[in-house]
C-alpha cells in the first residue's frame, strides 16, 4: 500500500486525500518509509523533519474531518531545497556558514504552499550556496542520481530532483540561477520549471545572483508542476522584481492541448556536436510533438557563448559581492570549488558587470524578436552530452574538471540572462541508465504554453511513469 501511495502523482494524491480515500497521515508515512529506504543511497535530505510532518498530517486529517479543506495541496507531503527562510529557524544553504543565521520571517513561496495545505517533510540537499551544477557537497555529502547512483543528480537543487524522482515527496521547490532547477529535474527525469524572471517571488530565498535567480518547482508530471507554479507565482510586494502580470490558471490551460503550437528546433550545425543519443531523443520527441499537433521548424540561434559570458559576468559579480566578507574572513569554511568559483567575481571590473546588465534588455528583446518571430516554443536539450558521473565531475580532485563542470550549464545559463521561462521535460534514457531531458523555452510569461506542450507529450508517452528501483 505504501508503495502504491508513493507512486501516485501530486494531483492524484491531493484528490485522494480531499476525497478521504486516503489520509494525510497514511500518505506521509508512505513517504517516510521510502525516505528511510532511499536516503542512504541518494542523500537527498539534509534534514528530515518526520515528527513535525506527522503532526501536521494529523492536523490536516482532523481539519478535513471537520469539513475544512485548506487548499489544493491539503495534506500533501513536499520538501524543498534548504535555502528558503522559515521564521525562527536557519537554512543551511548547503553551506557551513548559513546555518548559523536564524531567519526573521518566512519565504513567500513557503507561506503560499502552507496556505494551500502542503506539509513539509524536511530540508533537501543542494550544492553549497547554490553554486554548482552537479550536486556535489563537501559539507553535507554528495547527492546521487536515483537512476544510477554513480552519476550526478545535477545541481544546484540536487535534493529536489533526486527526492521527487525517487518518489520521496510529491513535489519540491528549487532555485535556478544558471540551470539549477532544470539540470537536476532533467538528470533525474522529472519536470522542472525555471519561471520568467519576476514571475515567482524570491523573498526569503537565499540569493546566488539576484539579477538571475528564479524560484521554481520540480514535480513528477507537467500537471503537477503547473499546479505548484500556480500556487507560488504572482505579485509579492516583498520582492521588488516581482511582476504584477496576472497569473493564469495553468492547470485549466492544459485542456487547450498542444495543437497549433509552433515549435523551433536547433539547426544541424548546432546539433552536430551533441551526443547521438541526445540528438536521437530530440528527434523522437519532435515527432511526438508533431503527432500531438505541434510541428517544428528549424530556427537560427545566436551564438550562446556570448550570452553565457554575459550571464557569467552578472552571476560571478553579484555572488562575489554577497560573499566578499565571508571569503575574506572565513575562506576555510568554503569548499575549494565554491571558493574558487565565487572568488573569480572579485576580479570582474564594475564596468563589465554594468555593461552586461545595461545591454540585457536589448539582447533579450533581440533574441525574442528573432528566435520567437515565428515559433511559440524553442526545443533544446537540457544537456547535450550524457550526464557525467560523480567522479568525472569531482572538482576537488582535478584541475581539469572545472571546465567540464562549466560545460554542464552551456544550454541553460543563457536563459537566466534572457529572463525567459524554460521547462525541463524527460523524454527517454541514455545507455548509462540516466534520463535524457529536453528544455522547452517560451516568450516571457508564457509558462502556460510550456505546460500545455509538456502535458500533451506526457499524455502520449510513459517516460514520466517509470520509477527508479533500489538495487
Amino acid at each position: 500500500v505504501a508503495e502504491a501511495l508513493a507512486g501516485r502523482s501530486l494531483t492524484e494524491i491531493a484528490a485522494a486525500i480531499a476525497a478521504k480515500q486516503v489520509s494525510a497521515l497514511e500518505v506521509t508515512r508512505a513517504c517516510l518509509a521510502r525516505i528511510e529506504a532511499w536516503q542512504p543511497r541518494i542523500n537527498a535530505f539534509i534534514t528530515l523533519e518526520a515528527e513535525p510532518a506527522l503532526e501536521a498530517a494529523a492536523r490536516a486529517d482532523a481539519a478535513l474531518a471537520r469539513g475544512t479543506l485548506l487548499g489544493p495541496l491539503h495534506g500533501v507531503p513536499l520538501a524543498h531545497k534548504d535555502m528558503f527562510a522559515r521564521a525562527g529557524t536557519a537554512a543551511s544553504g548547503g553551506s557551513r556558514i548559513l546555518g548559523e543565521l536564524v531567519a526573521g520571517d518566512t519565504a513567500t513561496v513557503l507561506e503560499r504552499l502552507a496556505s494551500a495545505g502542503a506539509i513539509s517533510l524536511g530540508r533537501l540537499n543542494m550544492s553549497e550556496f547554490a553554486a554548482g551544477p552537479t550536486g556535489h557537497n563537501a559539507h553535507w555529502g554528495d547527492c546521487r542520481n536515483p537512476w544510477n547512483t554513480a552519476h550526478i543528480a545535477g545541481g544546484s537543487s540536487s535534493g529536489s530532483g533526486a527526492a521527487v524522482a525517487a518518489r520521496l515527496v510529491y513535489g519540491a521547490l528549487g532555485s535556478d540561477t544558471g540551470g539549477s532547477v532544470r539540470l537536476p529535474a532533467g538528470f533525474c527525469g522529472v519536470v522542472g520549471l525555471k519561471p520568467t524572471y519576476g514571475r515567482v517571488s524570491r523573498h526569503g530565498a537565499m540569493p546566488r545572483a539576484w539579477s538571475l535567480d528564479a524560484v521554481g518547482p520540480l514535480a513528477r508530471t507537467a500537471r503537477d508542476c503547473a499546479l505548484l507554479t500556480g500556487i507560488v507565482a504572482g505579485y509579492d510586494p516583498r520582492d521588488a522584481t516581482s511582476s504584477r502580470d496576472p497569473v493564469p490558471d495553468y492547470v485549466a490551460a492544459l485542456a487547450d492541448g498542444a495543437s497549433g503550437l509552433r515549435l523551433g528546433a536547433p539547426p544541424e550545425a548546432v546539433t552536430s556536436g551533441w551526443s547521438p543519443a541526445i540528438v536521437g531523443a530530440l528527434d523522437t520527441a519532435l515527432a511526438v510533438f508533431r503527432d500531438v499537433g505541434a510541428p517544428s521548424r528549424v530556427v537560427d540561434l545566436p551564438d550562446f557563448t556570448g550570452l553565457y559570458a554575459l550571464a557569467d559576468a552578472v552571476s560571478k559579480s553579484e555572488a562575489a559581492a554577497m560573499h566578499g566578507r565571508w571569503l575574506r574572513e572565513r575562506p576555510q569554511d568554503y569548499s575549494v570549488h565554491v571558493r574558487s568559483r565565487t572568488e573569480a567575481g572579485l576580479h570582474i571590473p564594475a564596468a563589465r558587470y554594468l555593461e552586461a546588465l545595461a545591454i540585457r534588455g536589448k539582447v533579450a528583446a533581440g533574441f525574442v524578436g528573432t528566435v520567437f518571430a515565428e515559433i511559440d516554443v524553442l526545443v533544446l536539450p537540457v544537456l547535450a552530452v550524457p550526464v557525467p558521473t560523480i567522479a568525472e565531475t569531482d572538482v576537488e580532485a582535478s584541475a581539469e574538471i572545472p571546465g567540464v563542470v562549466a560545460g554542464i550549464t552551456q544550454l541553460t545559463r543563457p536563459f537566466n540572462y534572457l529572463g525567459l521561462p524554460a521547462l525541463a521535460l524527460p523524454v527517454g534514457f541514455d545507455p548509462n541508465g540516466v534520463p535524457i531531458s529536453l528544455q522547452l523555452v517560451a516568450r516571457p510569461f508564457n509558462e502556460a504554453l510550456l505546460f500545455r506542450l509538456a502535458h500533451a507529450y506526457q499524455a502520449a508517452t510513459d517516460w514520466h511513469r517509470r520509477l527508479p528501483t533500489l538495487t
Partner: protein
Amino acid sequence: MTEPSDELARLIELEARLLQRRPVTATRAAELAVEVERINRRVAAEAERQHGFFDDPFQFVALLESLKDAPRG
C-alpha cells in the same frame, strides 16, 4: 611582451595580499586570470556590438512584460 593573463594573475595575487586573504598560489591565480579575462573580453565585445544602447537594468521585468505577446501573422 608579458601576456595580459600573466598581468592579471599578478593583480589577483596583489589583491589577495592587500586584503590579507588566504595565500593565492600562482597556479590558481593564473587559472582565475584566464577565466576572468575570457568573461571580461566577451562582455566588452558584446557591449560594443550593441552600439551603445544602454537600458535601465531595473526596468528589466517591465521589458519582459512587454515581450509577452507573440506577433501573429
